[in-house]
């Protein structure tokens, strides 16, 4: 199954969850998502998502200067972001439960049909 399409729908909530744990810069967030199991996630998708969530007010951003290298842009969650995270977490749980239930029923039916023949 192509998980990229699935990922698109949940990337917002996944990014918010990661940033809620601890503020992070782009690559840091990407690394944590991949470490959390989303190995397929594209870097540009994560960087773009961070910028969209920032533009929507779910994230705040600040620059941490570095003496030797380029500055790092950090993102932190805002109260609006927390609200969005909790709403989307509930949505996801409901949705996942529904799909899981649906899949197990279908499987039962299929198994029954298989047993009859």
């Amino acid at each position, binding site marked *: 199954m192509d998980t990229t399409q699935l990922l698109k729908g949940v990337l917002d909530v996944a990014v918010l969850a990661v940033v809620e744990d601890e*503020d992070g810069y782009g690559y840091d967030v990407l690394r944590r998502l991949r470490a959390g199991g989303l190995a397929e996630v594209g870097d540009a*998708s994560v960087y773009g998502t961070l910028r969209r969530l920032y533009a929507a007010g779910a994230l705040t951003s600040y620059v941490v200067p570095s003496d030797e*290298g380029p500055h790092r842009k950090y993102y932190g969650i805002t109260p609006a972001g927390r609200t969005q995270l909790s709403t989307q977490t509930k949505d996801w749980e409901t949705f996942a439960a529904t799909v899981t239930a649906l899949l197990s029923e279908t499987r039962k039916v299929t198994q029954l049909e298989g047993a009859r023949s």
Partner: protein
Amino acid sequence: MTTPSTGATVLRPDVVEFLTRVREHLADLSVDERDELLDGLDADLSEQLAEGGALPDPASYAAELRSAAGLPPGRTVKPRKARARTLGAHLVAAPDTLRERWLGLTRRNDLTRRTWTMLEAVRPAWWVLRAWIAVSLVDQLAGEWESLTVLPTLGVPLLGPALLLVAIVLSVLIGQGRIWPGSGPDRTLLTRLVLAGLNLVAILAPLTFHFPDNQPYVVYRENGYRAGYLDAAQRPGLRHGSDVVRNVYAYDAQGQPLQGVQLFDQKGRPIAVAPQSSMGEGADRQVTCPWFNGTTPLFNVFPLRQRAQRYGTCLGKVDPSKVGPQGFHEPPLASVPPATLPDAVPPG
């Protein structure tokens, strides 16, 4: 919120180059949107590459970035890609490449970043300054010789300040990108070159200005016998210590004031005050007016007459109603003690 780590990442040149390409594929976005999208990516990608991996195709990367950021897909991606191989496209991209390299340099460390942020903040001051330079250039080129003034005069009352105001408005509108040739990326190569050329003129033009007092200048016709001629390398005018001498009062041996004293140095060169010499400010400003040999003004004959005049010199074209009458001022001392030579025989 926890304290973020600040381990330094070294900015990689291949990342800068890659981001320039990505930026080209985002050319249809506004400058703000693009900056917002790309800011900080140099550090992220540099670190990402340092841990392994390769840079992807800039076009698809830009597409993924903008789709994830919720921005509309690019309209100009395909034609730009097709043109990218031609020399013309390289030229068109050259200002962007330079700009990106420059921005990369400014982000090298905290000091350069702060300095650049500060310089960007004072850009409007440059817009005003270049407007003033442009009008002052016209002021200096038009009409009689005159020294640089804060408010350009242009010979007609209020014309200078009015023109300056118009120039400032135009310059600010150009700076904000509202009128041709505009500012920043997203413009044709020609308009960018035009703006760069105009800015260069604005930077170089002040080198030709006649700054008040101690700048080199050359005066009037080719007559060896006249005051005020000064070689371009010389400092014009007379000085007493560090003070500028603007008029000279001579007294005879009996201590009585003299009028019409012509002064020359040991080589026969006229000792003259600078023609643009003036005293006081605003309504109290006084200029010195020369004696003449025919039509040649002489600034080495003393005392010089003076008159009230707000701007310019006594020799410039001025509205007669705007200047006071010419006249000799009272000498600073009515008379001075008589002077004698020790070996001279007393008269009588």
